[in-house]
């Protein structure tokens, strides 16, 4: 749901870190991600700078009527704050998760926000997948372990595809479309350098060297992706990526009995949605052709997807016309 934006003419990039810090310290900062709006409050002295780095294109909203979740990232109290300062995550007044180091409020916010979305947005089928859009259709990259879906999603988002999410394929069964859950792409370990080499002018936040998932950095969503975060996308295609060192690029069609479990059994809330989840997953499998993409060269992987895409769009156009 969209917040009532108090000042849509200014983005976070247009205001000072002090203004962001003031908002965080008072009524909060509203982050409108497309399908969900978060209200974030914090007394962290570094969160404002970190948010400005990776949410720079988002509207600066410091007054609104609605948020789907209220988050507080606060400095931990107690004696240990003198020895090893930490920040903690509260949602709707309740403490959640173990604390993070005080210099890492952004990874805590990102991780906690993903957890909240997965818990709360049960009007949507939340596939665990990267999602990008082109020509009005969504391309899904389900998160099979070792798939490198965030790397490929990030690369596509830097080469003409609109980023919807690197974590959630948020399918609205009632409308039959995907919605954006637009946040920075969280890249881990070697993927950070892969994308920095792939797109030297990509905008990154700080690197956090010692999170529980290793080294993490956040890639900012492009301006156009942020501007279009309320635009939906029709189901387009599914690609199961698999990065394999030294492998030539392989592009092989997948049958529905492979696609169905890859989408449904990998979703955050499939079982919770019951019959609605089943019907939604079946609808997606019927509409979306699927391929396995095995690759080692990112440029070649993108060229393969880009070459196949016009045929996919044409196929959808024929189905819609018939």
């Amino acid at each position: 749901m969209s917040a009532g934006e108090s000042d849509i003419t200014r983005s976070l990039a247009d205001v000072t870190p002090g203004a962001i810090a003031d908002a965080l310290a008072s009524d909060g900062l509203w982050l409108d991600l497309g399908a969900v709006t978060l209200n974030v409050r914090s007394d962290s002295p570094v969160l404002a700078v970190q948010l400005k780095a990776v949410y720079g294109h988002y509207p600066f909203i410091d007054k609104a009527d609605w948020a789907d979740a209220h988050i507080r990232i606060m400095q931990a109290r107690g004696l240990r704050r003198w020895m090893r300062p930490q920040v903690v995550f509260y949602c709707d007044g309740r403490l959640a998760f173990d604390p993070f180091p005080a210099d890492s409020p952004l990874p805590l916010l990102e991780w906690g926000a993903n957890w909240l979305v997965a818990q709360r947005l049960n009007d949507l089928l939340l596939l665990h997948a990267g999602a990008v859009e082109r020509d009005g259709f969504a391309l899904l990259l389900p998160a099979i372990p070792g798939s490198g879906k965030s790397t490929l999603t990030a690369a596509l988002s830097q080469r003409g595809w609109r980023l919807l999410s690197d974590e959630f394929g948020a399918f609205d069964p009632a409308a039959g479309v995907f919605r954006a859950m637009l946040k920075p792409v969280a890249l881990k370990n070697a993927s950070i350098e892969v994308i920095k080499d792939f797109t030297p002018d990509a905008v990154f936040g700080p690197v956090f060297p010692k999170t529980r998932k290793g080294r993490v950095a956040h890639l900012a969503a492009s301006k156009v992706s942020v501007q279009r975060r309320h635009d939906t996308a029709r189901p387009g295609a599914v690609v199961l990526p698999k990065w394999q060192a030294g492998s030539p690029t392989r592009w092989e069609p997948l049958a529905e009995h492979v696609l169905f479990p890859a989408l449904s059994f990998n979703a955050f809330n499939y079982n919770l949605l019951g019959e609605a989840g089943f019907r939604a997953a079946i609808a997606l499998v019927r509409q979306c052709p699927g391929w396995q993409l095995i690759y080692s060269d990112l440029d070649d992987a993108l060229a393969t997807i880009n070459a196949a895409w016009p045929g996919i769009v044409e196929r959808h156009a024929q189905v819609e016309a018939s």
Partner: protein
Amino acid sequence: MRCFARVEGILVEPVGHLWAAFSPATGETALLNDESASILEVLEIEPADTTAVCVLLSSDSGIAPDELFALVDGSWQQLTEAGLVRELPVTLNNPQ
């Protein structure tokens, strides 16, 4: 002989070479082969025991009922655990 009924409200859809079957009783989805899906289709008509299911499947497939018996009899546990069929408290031959 034990008799089984299809659980009300289950959804069965073909997905490639398999079938996806959702059970409202368990909230779970199972992937089934053609044989298990055929058993569910037979039970859509009425509850049946293994022998009756084999006779109906035989007429459809041309395979002798005796050859189908072990396959059908061995499917009940998986289908029951998946919440797709339920065993009736009485047998067909000796209803009380």
